[in-house]
């Protein structure tokens, strides 16, 4: 009987100890929402006329221009 009580007590302690292994969710509950003014999108500039693909192509071309291997090596 005493053994049984001891086993139950130990199991109870172990189960209680496991609570410490839990992890409390620390993620912020409140979603951050931008409260300021609306911005105009870059592609809406008159020179691109809202054509995002054209704007992206222009920027990609310019980005590739940073690779001097493309400019200096004989193809």
């Amino acid at each position, binding site marked *: 009987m005493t053994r049984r009580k001891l086993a139950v007590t130990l199991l109870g302690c172990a189960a209680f100890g496991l609570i410490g292994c839990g992890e409390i969710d620390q993620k912020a509950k409140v979603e951050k929402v931008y409260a300021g003014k609306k911005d105009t999108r870059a592609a809406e500039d008159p020179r691109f006329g809202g054509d995002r693909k054209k704007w992206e192509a222009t920027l990609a071309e310019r980005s590739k221009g940073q*690779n001097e291997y493309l400019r200096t090596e004989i193809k």
Partner: protein
Amino acid sequence: MARMKFICDAERCIECNGCATACKNEHEVPWGVNRRRLITVNDGKPGERSMSVACMHCSDAPCMAVCPVDCFYKTEEGVVLHDKDLCIGCGYCFYACPFGAPQFPQAGAFGLRGKMDKCTFCAGGPEENHSKAEFTKYGRNRIAEGKLPACAEMCSTKALLAGDGAVIESIYKTRVQRRGKGDEIWGWAMAYKRGDALASGVKS
């Protein structure tokens, strides 16, 4: 399009300050505010390296998370911008930023802080594109003109690369492989292993 990013190649940077100067000139940034600056390690010693640092336009930006007035927003291209009309100059973003990007102009006597100013990736801010208000508050909007940030375009050694993350990553990768390194430059071992372990060819 992926996210807009900066990469600074420490092997190429010669600490000329061309990027910082280009930024200052392009946006007429006030005295005491440095949207971009140079960091040098091992100055004057063998192994000296320099790195151009500004706002890195983080994917999960800590400045956005801590702002009490929610004045930060992210454009479709991943550029982190803020509304100066809403900013209260509290400085929380400065403490949160691991790069020291937010800058505060002195707005009066006794060290009074003005509204936060930082690199905009030359994408202006929440004002009409190319308007006087946009230029005064945020600087020139080169992105809407189809151009890259002035700092990267000015860089004489092309140490500082800016643009679509995928494009500049491929430029940088090609460059490092040409220097005589291969695939070991990517992954866990390069990021976390010690130099001697890498040299002896120990893989993760």
